[in-house]
């Protein structure tokens, strides 16, 4: 067996353990800086991951673990997200009373879970990876122990997370009980025999419900706004980007590797779930005033758009999901970087805290505006091209099933609704009543760099999508069962 296949994951786990150990010997006032070390380590791993670029797909652990272009795409995605989240955590360290190095290492462990999820080709590894992510996030969400909201977020996440884990494990048990298989490829080989077995179908349905918790999609979406609002900002950012993407890579592998025939039969279900998720997220976001809560709802809405690409049941749709996630990463991380810096200066997370931001720091104002514009899906930023690909993929299928036209209609409706609340944020930045205090907001150099990276990413993906589109197309080829 080739252990070099999981060398990235091993490196991440060692990094996390190393951080925990280093905590023992480092003086307390130096501990904050440990985050930079962690970010550097993750950066090196990201750099190292490019060594695997041309390597053909291979599997390890009896087919449980695969390293293919799809896994690599997501692993790089998670590593990049983790670097920025770690940098954010350093800036956030002042707000965490004790145990900042545990906070860093928990982020690294969540990252390890996500990396395993990217490669999971087996229900057991799927469950383990998901639990690794979820359990670390239980702690990460409630890390500000003195803050009631943070604890509340932790409890809510725990309850709904445990419930969906129960669904997941029950589903896995049902599938294993009927087919006797856990591996996706072997399930695919026998799935036709069980196509009408209700217990098997119920098992798949339960697994999907469990996964929808990670995606923040209907029916397990209710936790998102509360948890996003209560958690520490870096946690929220990682939850919004990493955890969601992990859910999507697992969903893609499960639906298109293990049970492609059932997925095709259930496309109406996927469409309806996507429509409900889009509408719920966008409609509920309209009256919100808390910035992080807006992102909670927007995250639900975005899960809906992404599900559109899954529901399209085509290579174009799956590639669109990958591309959209890339644009989403930069937009959301840029927004949370800004929120983090503004919250350091102003108490409260109300949208009115942004008043006069364009005078306090033009860079932050511009970055948050670009992020909103990208999320709203307006050219020339990444979000536009992502939505363009998703909608194109769904329209393509319209000839087969007219329900896709409804899906596209709902997506357009969602985009229009979302413009109103995303522009509400921009309006708060540029032309709301200015507060009495207009002190400049200092932006440390490394955070400024992170912001520039996010901005560059949004513009690059929006203006020159070719490279990433081809990368995404290559990545989803491994799922091409049709």
């Amino acid at each position, binding site marked *: 067996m080739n252990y070099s296949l999981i060398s990235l994951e091993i490196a991440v786990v060692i990094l996390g353990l190393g951080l925990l150990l280093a905590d023992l010997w480092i003086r307390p006032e130096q501990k904050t800086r440990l985050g930079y070390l962690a970010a550097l380590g993750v950066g090196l791993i990201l750099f190292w991951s490019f060594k695997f670029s041309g390597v053909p797909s291979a599997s390890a652990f009896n087919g449980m673990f695969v390293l293919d272009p799809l896994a690599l795409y997501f692993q790089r995605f998670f590593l990049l997200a983790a670097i920025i989240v770690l940098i954010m955590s350093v800036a956030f360290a002042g707000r965490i009373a004790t145990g900042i190095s545990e906070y860093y290492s928990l982020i690294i462990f969540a990252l390890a879970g996500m990396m395993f999820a990217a490669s999971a080709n087996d229900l057991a590894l799927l469950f383990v990876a998901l639990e690794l992510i979820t359990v670390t996030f239980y702690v990460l969400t409630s890390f500000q122990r003195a803050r009631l909201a943070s604890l509340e977020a932790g409890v809510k996440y725990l309850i709904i997370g445990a419930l969906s884990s129960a669904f997941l494990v029950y589903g896995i048990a049902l599938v294993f009980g009927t087919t006797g298989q856990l591996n996706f490829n072997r399930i695919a080989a026998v799935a036709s025999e069980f196509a009408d077995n209700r217990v098997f179908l119920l098992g798949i349905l339960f697994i999907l419900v469990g996964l929808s918790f990670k995606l923040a999609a209907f029916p397990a979406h209710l936790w998102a706004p509360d948890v996003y609002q209560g958690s520490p900002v870096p946690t929220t950012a990682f939850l919004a980007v990493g955890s969601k993407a992990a859910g999507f890579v697992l969903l893609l592998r499960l639906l298109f590797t293990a049970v492609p025939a059932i997925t095709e039969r259930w496309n109406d279900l996927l469409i309806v779930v996507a429509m409900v998720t889009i509408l719920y997220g966008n409609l509920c976001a309209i009256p919100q005033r808390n910035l992080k809560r807006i992102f909670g709802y927007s995250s639900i809405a975005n899960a809906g758009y992404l599900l559109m690409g899954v529901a399209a049941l085509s290579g174009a749709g799956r590639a669109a999901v990958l591309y959209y996630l890339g644009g989403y990463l930069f937009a959301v991380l840029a927004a949370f970087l800004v929120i983090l810096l503004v919250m350091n200066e102003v108490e409260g997370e109300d949208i009115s805290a942004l008043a006069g931001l364009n005078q306090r720091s033009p860079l932050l104002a511009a970055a948050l505006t670009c992020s909103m514009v990208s999320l709203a899906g307006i050219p*020339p930023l990444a979000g536009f091209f992502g939505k*363009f690909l998703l*909608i*194109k993929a769904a329209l393509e299928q319209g000839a087969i099933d007219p329900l896709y036209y409804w899906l596209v209609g709902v997506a357009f409706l969602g985009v229009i609704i979302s413009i109103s609340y995303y522009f509400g944020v921009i309006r708060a930045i540029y032309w709301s009543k200015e507060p009495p205090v207009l002190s400049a907001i200092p932006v440390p150099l490394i955070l400024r760099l992170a912001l520039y990276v996010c901005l560059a990413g949004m513009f690059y993906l929006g203006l*020159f999508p*070719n490279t990433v589109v081809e990368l995404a197309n290559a990545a989803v080829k491994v799922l091409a069962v049709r």
Partner: protein
Amino acid sequence: MLTYLIFLPLLTAVILCFVPRNYAFLMRLASLAATGVTMLLALAVFLRFDSAPLGPSSAYKFEQQLNWIRSLGISYHVGVDGVNVGLVLMGAIVAFAATCCAWEIRNREKEFYILLLIMTGGILCAFASLDLFLFYFAHELALVPTFIMIGVWGRGVDKNLATFQITLYLSIGALVALAGLIALYLRAGAQSFDLVTLTQYAAVHPMAVRDQNFIFPLLLVGFGILISLWPFHTWAPLGYGSAPTPTAMLHAGVLKKFGLYGLIRIALPLLPHAAQAWAGTIAWLCLGNIVYCGFVAMRQRDLNWLIGYSSVAHMGFIFLGIASLNIIGVTGAVLVMIAHGFLAALTFGLAGYLQHTTGTSDMDKMGGLLRRLPFLGGALLLALFAGCGLPGFANFAGEVTVFFGAWKQFPLITVLAVWAALVIGAVYMLRAIRSLLHGPVPERCAQTVEDSWPLRKLPYVLLLVPLLVFGVYPRLLTDKIWPGAETVLASVHPSEQPSPMPAVTPKSTPIHRAEAKP
């Protein structure tokens, strides 16, 4: 050459991002230089158009194609033919004039000029593009600055409502049009967004009539919202009334023509059957613009609203020209598009100036301005005359060509439209002239004096000159538009090639030649 013309404003915008905001004068100078050079380039393209060789697609000139997103068949493809060469020229002149008029912006100049330059680049790119994706992309690039400019630098008490309304309304329009464009791409089956490829492919494999009838309404409604086709026009007057002057000039003058250009360039050649099926509906809807919005304009007491409604009303003529689906009508439509671009920019520029100097846009509170402001009053007089379609201005040439084109298909509608144009248009324009320019000078205008600086007058001169030149000698445009219109309509009337109307005199002598002279 077109690429320089498009990217000069965009690159200047990027450079300005890195100039400190204290150098407001430098910003203004750089913007003026960029748009000025762009205008000269556009003029050069226009003048050299006839002698220029055809590009690789053998239909367009000054062509350039670069791969952009290869896996989807999207490329950066620009080029001009007779239909858009005039529009590019018009857009570039209006952009320069709008930049000249931007002196009234006194806060956050940096952002304003950056947005103005992005808008200019986007507009020119949209009109020059030969790729559906680039076409939409560039339009959105120009559209979004409009929203921000209205929101930040807007005038009047209703600017927040106006921003909100115009943003939602135009976003809906743009999205519906986008759905139409994607559906067109998918149904055409050419696996390409390239207009040339699509047209060639459609000539061999025509799209199913059912698909056409499904896509055309999407494009019509989407573009119709962007153009303010009745009954989707309600955003226009409030939006223009609240927009800062340069934005109103650029949007009403140039950007709004995007939808019309899209209908002519994309919908007619690629969806010929649906175009024929829908022509009657468009013709009736355009009466809503011409007659209904004309009546509404008569009731306005606010100068900006009056111009806003009259600009909506003028869109009706262009629709009528498109709906006639013959070469004369379409040529006239393009001519009106160009003429109205100059006219709308001119009137909005002058109205902005008046509002700035007198502090009001209420026509009842102004009067006798011709005595106080001889040059600007004279320019406004000419502009309003052009607005009622007085011979000698390019508007007359265009409108009369549209009527000739539409007469055969829609005699009743044409009669109504002619009446509306002559009577309703004259009523509101002449009333505006009376209350603005003549009569006693009210207290607040008594101290108004004309700016002696010639640069302030330059934009108005620049906009008036083409109106008069193309009005007196429309062949400068029609000779270029005619072959372009012929290609556009080639698939609509495949059997009646080359000319759809046998009664028409040969193309070397357009029939409006004599009428156009005053």
